[in-house]
């Protein structure tokens, strides 16, 4: 059990929860969260929004039973964190684009921060798409070299993939697919890394309910992912 330090409302549906937890989480990894005993039965996978050695933060959207429970938690309450799980985004340098849609912006904050820390010479441009209200733009601006915000439109329209050495994205599958198609159609050479959001049960690679059928064979989103190459996920279609 870990202690909740903060659980703050950010916008109508979004909350930011900071939890006391020794960790070595890296960008793009996730935890399985549980703030109840038996039911709902499954723990909920949530990406690491931010982390230092002693704390982990999660940016989550309230969509159903589990996240409704999360949003009621107060500082001092306890929560079970299991993780960090998954491979996370790869290290990269040069000209980097991070493209997020909706709650998919969550893992990109730590990603921008870590990439800039490791490679001060790299440039990190962020493209964030929201259907409703934009959020945490100040935080993202502090982490990246530039932030382009799109509210209500298609964030994939804002980016010129040919300008980058590597592109990483997280968001609705349809958005990531459109971005992949755009990269192909404009002849971008940058590898595109996508973070998959499949429904999970065990979260550790044992049950195969989160399988992605890729061009390189079946991959477990929780263990072999969630980050995969766009070409292996969408290349067959």
């Amino acid at each position, binding site marked *: 059990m870990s202690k909740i330090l903060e659980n703050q409302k950010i916008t109508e549906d979004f909350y930011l929860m900071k939890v006391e937890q020794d960790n070595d989480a890296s960008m793009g990894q996730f935890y399985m969260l549980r703030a109840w005993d*038996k*039911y*709902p*039965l*499954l*723990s909920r996978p949530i990406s690491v929004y931010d982390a230092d050695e002693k704390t982990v933060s999660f940016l989550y959207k309230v969509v159903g039973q589990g996240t409704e429970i999360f949003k009621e938690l107060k500082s001092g309450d306890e929560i079970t964190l*299991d993780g960090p799980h998954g491979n996370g985004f790869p290290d990269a340098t040069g000209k980097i684009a991070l493209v997020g849609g909706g709650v998919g912006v969550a893992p990109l904050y730590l990603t921008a921060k870590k990439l800039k820390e490791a490679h001060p010479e790299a440039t990190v441009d962020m493209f964030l798409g929201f259907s409703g209200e934009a959020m945490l733009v100040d935080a993202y601006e502090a982490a990246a070299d530039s932030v382009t915000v799109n509210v209500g439109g298609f964030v994939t329209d804002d980016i010129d993939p040919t300008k980058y050495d590597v592109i990483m994205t997280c968001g609705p599958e349809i958005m990531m697919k459109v971005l992949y198609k755009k990269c192909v159609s404009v002849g971008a050479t940058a590898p595109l890394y996508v973070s998959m959001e499949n*429904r*999970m*049960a*065990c979260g*550790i*690679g*044992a*049950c*195969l*309910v*989160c*399988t992605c*059928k890729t061009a390189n064979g*079946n991959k477990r989103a929780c*263990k072999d992912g969630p980050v995969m190459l766009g070409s292996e996920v969408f290349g067959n279609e």
Partner: protein
Amino acid sequence: MSKRLETVFAGVTFKNPVALASGTCGFGKEFNEYFDIQKLGGLCSKGLTLHARGGNDGIRVWETPSGIMNSVGLENPGVQHFIECDLDRMNSLDLVNIVNLGGHSMEDYLQAVEILNDYKLDILELNISCPNVKAGGMNFGVKTEMAREVVREIRKACKHKLVIKLSPNAEDIVSLAKACEEEGADGVSLTNTFLAMAIDLKKKKPVFENTYAGLSGPAIKPISLRMVHQVAHAVSIPVMGLGGISTWQDAIEFIMAGATVIQIGTASFMNPRLAVDVIDGMERYLEENGIENLSEIRGIL
């Protein structure tokens, strides 16, 4: 640990009667990062088939009140790959190595059984909750006579201890279990998942590509317990009981209903260390009640 939990199932000794159920624990590697899986009495492999299978498309898991539905579709690397990559490791563990086998035709089952005959393993658990492609997709585990035929052929071919894993969707699970016994099975395990359905209201479509999926978890426990009770009274071969076990009390209930060994599946998703808690809880219960061995309370109801 005392010998209170030691159990003999069809001549195979389990140091305790708790195994992880097929399909919920892979081949044991991942759970070993949470606890020493050698604390378990047994481990059932992911359901294997003769050839590798990619499994089903679309959503594969859906939560229900106190349960889940799954539609994995027997994704697995195939028997040969299992033998090359996982069998030795599973055999080297201090636990009963239960290899689970599925199939979609009699020929598939038989070929896989022949291949496995050449290798060491402790128990072959035959999953008959699979559609028979040669009988219009009718599940092997529904009609007693179809199940009887599979068990008869496989018994003739199989050199290993053979446990038949029964489907709760059987038309008459008691007569089906009796048929397994008559055809020479060494034991039965039950239950597999219950055929179930969920509908996506927004899309006005079934959630699962296959329309139906298998329900498991605490939601099914009372029904699985009743079936274990009925079957254990009707056959003299030993029974492995499972279906929704999520506490040590549940495990003891299955033993009282007549199960020799119990398996834990879905509940490991609530807590990956649950099986160890169940083992510890059972041990404590026996100690506190002055019971020297689980056999004193097995099948007392």
